[in-house]
């Protein structure tokens, strides 16, 4: 079964540091997403990406966040200056096309900001 791969599985960083979370979406998928889930809370949409540009972003996705697809396979989320409240699980997802088809999620990166 195809899968979305995320690295690292766990990242600990100091407040104010930059982090890059990496994702390898399913190869023939065209739409990519980042979600986050703070411990004990619901899964929250951050940003969607299509055709090498952001198609939609939530209010959570402020200027500290950026996404990039630097090559044909990786999809990254960068947090420029981490805050304590950025501690959460970050999930990458991809979908072939948003026409009522299944979205595939990665296993997530647990980000801990200390």
């Amino acid at each position, binding site marked *: 079964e195809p899968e979305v791969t995320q690295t690292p599985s766990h990242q600990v960083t100091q407040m104010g540091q930059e982090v890059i979370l990496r994702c390898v979406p399913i190869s023939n998928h065209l739409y990519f997403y980042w979600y986050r889930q703070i411990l004990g809370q619901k899964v929250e949409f951050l940003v969607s990406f299509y055709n090498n540009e952001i198609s939609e972003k939530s209010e959570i996705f402020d200027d500290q966040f950026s996404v990039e697809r630097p090559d044909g396979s990786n999809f990254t989320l960068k947090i420029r200056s981490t805050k304590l409240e950025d501690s959460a699980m970050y999930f990458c997802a991809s*979908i072939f096309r948003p026409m009522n088809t299944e979205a595939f*999620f990665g296993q997530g990166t647990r980000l801990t900001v200390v």
Partner: protein
Amino acid sequence: LAKTTQPISMDSYEGQEVNITCSHNNIATNDYITWYQQFPSQGPRFIIQGYKTKVTNEVASLFIPADRKSSTLSLPRVSLSDTAVYYCLVGDSDNQGGKLIFGQGTELSVKP
């Protein structure tokens, strides 16, 4: 986006059938109903999707009445490994660029 309402938690025992109902009174004509499952510290996983009547796959069944204002996810003969959070999502993924909006979900606890 249609708002969904589902029970916060449910308890069941191994071998029982579990039915989780989701209300979506404001569902639009183009909206599909999709259920995802999430285990602790894992990403959500697609279970089933439907538009009307009944859909069945190897994991679950989805029952949607004619008015489509609710839907019921049915898990036959649950096991301990079905303990997870189940999310009901409603939307026209085409117009929304495919993004999924998750509610609080239903935390299902299966006991031996």
